[in-house]
Every structure is written in structure tokens, then in C-alpha cells.
């Protein structure tokens, strides 16, 4: 028996490996996409936040410079103590703010240095203004302020405005690229993840399929190996029993002083066991050929009634205790089948009917028509078949074991052969029984040409 799908197994490991690698690849790609997207977004957000912070610093420096200019003007107009203190404070704030720029480094550090230089010069001009005010020369102080301080304030403001505008542009660009990134992520992510999940699901299903196929194959191998072990054990048992007789009786004939009558008796025993072995081998080969579809049948139109009558005739002589009653439907049309094999079916069933009715009793053989089927029934009045065994009696070596059947010889292959032959004729066979009252075997065979069914392939139409 071949394991179903056996040859396909060879291609599996490679394809399964490809599917596993594919699965791993898809997972890695999805993870890489997620990491790149998250990293890009993070970097762009950081940059935008930095630029935002710079812009705030520029603005605070600008406003500090403006405050200082106002404080200086207020001090010139009214050189009170309060205005002097306010001017000093404004000075300090401006320097502190410029120093904050230094912390940003790069071009901002350069800007801060320039600003501090300008502010230093501004402080010098502010000192001159203060000196003029202390001399009560208001007009001169105003002139110094207008001609020296104001242009310096202006230059500082221009520098700051330029830097602010530049920062503003950079921040806008950063936000624009962040928006672009979000945009493509929103568009691409659903597509990428949908494709990814479809691939994952598909590959997963493929692997699951392989896994199931593998476990099915293992189960089949396990079952085959168990069947093989059972077969070897049964066959060994079936062969050893007749061999024991052959070996034992022949050794006695060789080693002991026997009369001619005893010699003949033992030779008969050996012959009986040899025939049993031969029948066992023939049955096993027949069954094997039928099960594997290698048996060829000579198909011809047949009169089932005639087969029944011919097959039953020898039993009338050999089993006188079992009268054979024929109830034949003479109007039964012909069937197409193998004469030899259908004779074997009837012989096996009648032989069983006689064997399993040790106390005698009639064996009834009946044919009748049921629409497009010919029905053959063989009924005995023997020990019957336990209900739980009605189906298993058709399995190999399954014999009913009891005190009565122990003395009945059989290969355990008769009924499996009957079922195979009937099935190869597109028919059906089954048993019904009332234990203690006898058994009935029913055979249904199609009239005319057997229907083209699952067994048709095993029924070569050519006459060999």
C-alpha cells in the first residue's frame, strides 16, 4: 500500500524552507519600515523644536535690545536715579540674552560675539552720554546718542532681524519636511502593512498546510508500520501451524519404525497441512493482487443461476449433513463478470455456511432481481455471527473465536477475498445474523455491464 501523497513529500522541505524564509523576510521588512519611519519623524521633530527655540531666543534678544534703547533714551531725557538703575538693568538683560545665543553654537556663537562687540561699543558711547549729562550738557548727550548709539542699536537690530528671518525660514522648511514625512507615512503605512499582513497570512497558511501534511504523513507511516507488524505476526502464526505438522509428521516417518498404514496416515496429515499452506499462499496473493488492482478478470456475460448451481454441486457430495436448497429466479438477466471469481465467491460463502453450521442444517441459496441489481443470498442455520463482528469478519485474519469455531480450519482470508471480488464487480456484500439462529450473506451485483464507478479502473475491459 502506498502512502497517499507520498511522492509530493520530497518537494516539501525546500518549499517549506522558502516559505519560512519569506515569513522571516516579511517580518524584518515590516519592522525596518516601522523603525525608519519612527526614526525619521523623531529626527525631524527634534530639528523643528530646536529651530523653534532659536527663533524664541532671537526674539528675546531683539526685545532686550529695544528695551535698552528705550531705557537709554529715558535716561537722557530725565537723568534721574531711577532711570540710571533701569538702564543698568536693561544692559545686564541684553548681555544675558546675547550669552544665551552663544550656547547654541555655530553661526549663532559668531552672531553672539559680534553682538557683544557692538554692545561693548554701545556701552562706551553710553558712558560718553552719561559724562555729558553730568556736565549738564543735555544737548551734547542727545547728539552723542543720535549720532553714535542709535546707529549701533540699529545695526544690532538689523543683525538680529536677519538671523530671525533665516531661522524662521529654516523652521518652516523643517516643519514642511515633517509634514511631508507624515504625509507619506499616512499614505504608505496602510499599503505596506496590508501587503505585509496578506503575505504573512499566506505564508503562515502554507507552513500550517505543510505542518498538517507532515503530521498526516507521520500518522500514516505509524499506521502502516502497525499494520505491517500485525501482518507479519499473523502470517507467521498462520504459516507456523501447518509447518509444525509437516515437520513433525515427516520427522516421525524418517526416524521411527512405522507400519505402511501409519506411513500413509502421516503422509495424509502432511498433505493436509501442505494444502493448507498452499491455499494460504494462493489466498494471500489473490487478495494482494485484487487490493492493488493488479488482478485481471475475464469478463463475459454470465448466468448467475448457473454459477450458483455449479458452485454448490460439489458440496452436495462432501457435506451430506447440509442439504443445499436452491431458490433461483429463472427470469434473472445475465450479468457481466468473471465466471471463475464469482464461482470463488459462492464457493467461499457456501463453504463458510457449512463450516459454521457444525450441527448440520440446510444451506439456502437464493437469487432474485431488485430493479437493476441481481441479488444473491446464502443462508445457513449455524451458530450465527455476533452483531459487533458483522463488519469486521470481512477484515483479514478476523475469525470468530469461540469454543465451537476453534476446531474449524480457515485462513481468515475467505471473506476479505469475497468482498474484494464483489467490489471489483461494482457490487456490495454484507452479512446479517441472529446469533444461534444462523447467518445470511447478501451479495448485490449490477445487471448488464458493471456501472463505471471507483472500481471500474481495476476491471480491465479487454478479455485476457
Amino acid at each position, binding site marked *: 500500500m502506498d502512502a497517499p501523497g507520498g511522492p509530493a513529500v520530497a518537494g516539501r522541505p525546500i518549499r517549506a524552507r522558502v516559505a519560512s524564509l519569506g515569513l522571516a523576510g516579511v517580518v524584518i521588512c515590516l519592522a525596518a519600515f516601522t523603525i525608519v519611519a519612527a526614526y525619521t519623524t523623531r529626527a525631524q521633530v527634534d530639528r523643528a523644536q530646536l529651530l523653534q527655540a532659536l527663533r524664541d531666543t532671537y526674539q528675546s534678544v531683539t526685545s532686550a535690545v529695544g528695551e535698552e534703547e528705550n531705557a537709554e533714551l529715558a535716561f537722557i531725557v530725565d537723568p534721574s536715579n531711577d532711570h540710571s538703575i533701569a538702564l543698568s538693568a536693561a544692559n545686564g538683560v541684553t548681555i544675558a540674552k546675547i550669552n544665551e545665543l552663544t550656547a547654541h553654537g555655530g553661526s549663532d556663537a559668531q552672531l553672539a560675539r559680534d553682538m557683544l562687540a557692538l554692545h561693548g561699543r554701545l556701552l562706551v558711547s553710553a558712558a560718553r552720554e552719561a559724562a555729558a549729562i553730568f556736565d549738564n550738557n543735555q544737548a551734547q548727550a542727545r547728539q552723542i546718542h543720535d549720532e553714535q548709539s542709535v546707529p549701533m542699536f540699529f545695526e544690532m537690530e538689523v543683525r538680529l532681524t536677519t538671523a530671525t528671518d533665516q531661522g524662521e525660514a529654516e523652521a518652516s522648511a523643517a516643519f514642511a519636511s515633517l509634514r511631508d514625512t507624515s504625509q507619506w507615512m499616512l499614505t504608505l503605512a496602510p499599503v505596506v502593512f496590508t501587503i505585509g499582513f496578506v503575505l504573512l497570512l499566506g505564508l503562515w497558511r502554507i507552513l500550517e498546510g505543510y505542518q498538517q501534511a507532515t503530521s498526516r504523513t507521520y500518522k500514516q507511516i505509524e499506521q502502516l508500520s502497525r499494520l505491517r507488524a500485525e501482518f507479519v505476526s499473523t502470517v507467521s502464526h498462520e504459516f507456523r501451524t501447518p509447518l509444525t505438522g509437516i515437520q513433525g509428521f515427516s520427522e*516421525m516417518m524418517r526416524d521411527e519404525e512405522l507400519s505402511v498404514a501409519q506411513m500413509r496416515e502421516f503422509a495424509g496429515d502432511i498433505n493436509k497441512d501442505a494444502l493448507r499452506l498452499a491455499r494460504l499462499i494462493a489466498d494471500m496473493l489473490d487478495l494482494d493482487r485484487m487490493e492493488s488492482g493488479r488482478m485481471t478478470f475475464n469478463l463475459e456475460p454470465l448466468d448467475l443461476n448457473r454459477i450458483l448451481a455449479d458452485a454448490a454441486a460439489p458440496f452436495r457430495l462432501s457435506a451430506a449433513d447440509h442439504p443445499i436448497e436452491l431458490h433461483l429466479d429463472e427470469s434473472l438477466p445475465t450479468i457481466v463478470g468473471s465466471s471463475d471469481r464469482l464461482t470463488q465467491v459462492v464457493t467461499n460463502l457456501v463453504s463458510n455456511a457449512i463450516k459454521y453450521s457444525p450441527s448440520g442444517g440446510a444451506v439456502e441459496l437464493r437469487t432474485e432481481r431488485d430493479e437493476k441489481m441481481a441479488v444473491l443470498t446464502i443462508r445457513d442455520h449455524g451458530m450465527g455471527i455476533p452483531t459487533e463482528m458483522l463488519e469486521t469478519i470481512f477484515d483479514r485474519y478476523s475469525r470468530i473465536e469461540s469454543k465451537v469455531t476453534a476446531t474449524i480450519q480457515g485462513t481468515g482470508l475467505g471473506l476479505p477475498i469475497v468482498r474484494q471480488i464483489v467490489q471489483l464487480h461494482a457490487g456490495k456484500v454484507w452479512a446479517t445474523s441472529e446469533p444461534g439462529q444462523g447467518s445470511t450473506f447478501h451479495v448485490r451485483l449490477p445487471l448488464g455491464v458493471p456501472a463505471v464507478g471507483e472500481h471500474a479502473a481495476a476491471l480491465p475491459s479487454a478479455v485476457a
Partner: protein
Amino acid sequence: MARIVFCEDEEQIRKLIQVTMRSSDHVIELMPNGRDGLAAIERMVPDLIVTDVAMPEMGGFALADAVHARPTISHIPILFITASVQRGEIAQFGAHGAAGYLAKPFSPRELREKVESLIPE
């Protein structure tokens, strides 16, 4: 002279045993299954039991267990005859208190020797 009960379901082998043992002076009883064998053993209390393993009604192992469970006959040595000598079964012989085993096909001489070796003095 010893008394021996044989249990064997195959008619041909029962006949072989009978023919083999008739040259000895032992009293033998041949039974077709374990259940009838047990009845004969309890009645005769033989010196040796020889039994097939696979038999209908009561197999050899069940017979051995039944014999060991009955104090009046539990001392009788048991020789198993088997048609399937596989590793698992040999281990089972020990578990069922076998004194020995004989594998089919066996020769009449082997059967006689085995039986003689197991009959108590």
C-alpha cells in the same frame, strides 16, 4: 511415569503431540482450549502443563494465571508452545511464570526432550 495436560486448539498439532508422546510411558490428556484444560488440570493435578499461547475461550497466559491463582495446582510447571516468538512475547512468558517455551514449528524430539526436562523428579 508422569501425568501431563496439553492444551492446543489446532487439531493437527494435537494429533502430532499425541503420536509423539505415545512412545513415552506418561499419561497425557489433550484439551482444545484453556478453559477445558483448566478443568482437566484441577481434576488430574498433573506433573506438567503444556499449553499453546493463542487459543479461543481461554488463551495460554490466562490459563497460567488461573493455575497460579489456585493453591492446589499453582506448583505445577508450565511449558508454553507459541507460533509467534517475538521479543515482547518471550518477556511475557516470564511474567506468567513459565518454566520454558517451545516455538512452532518444533520437532517431536524437541517436544519430548523439553517435556522430560521439566517433569519433576
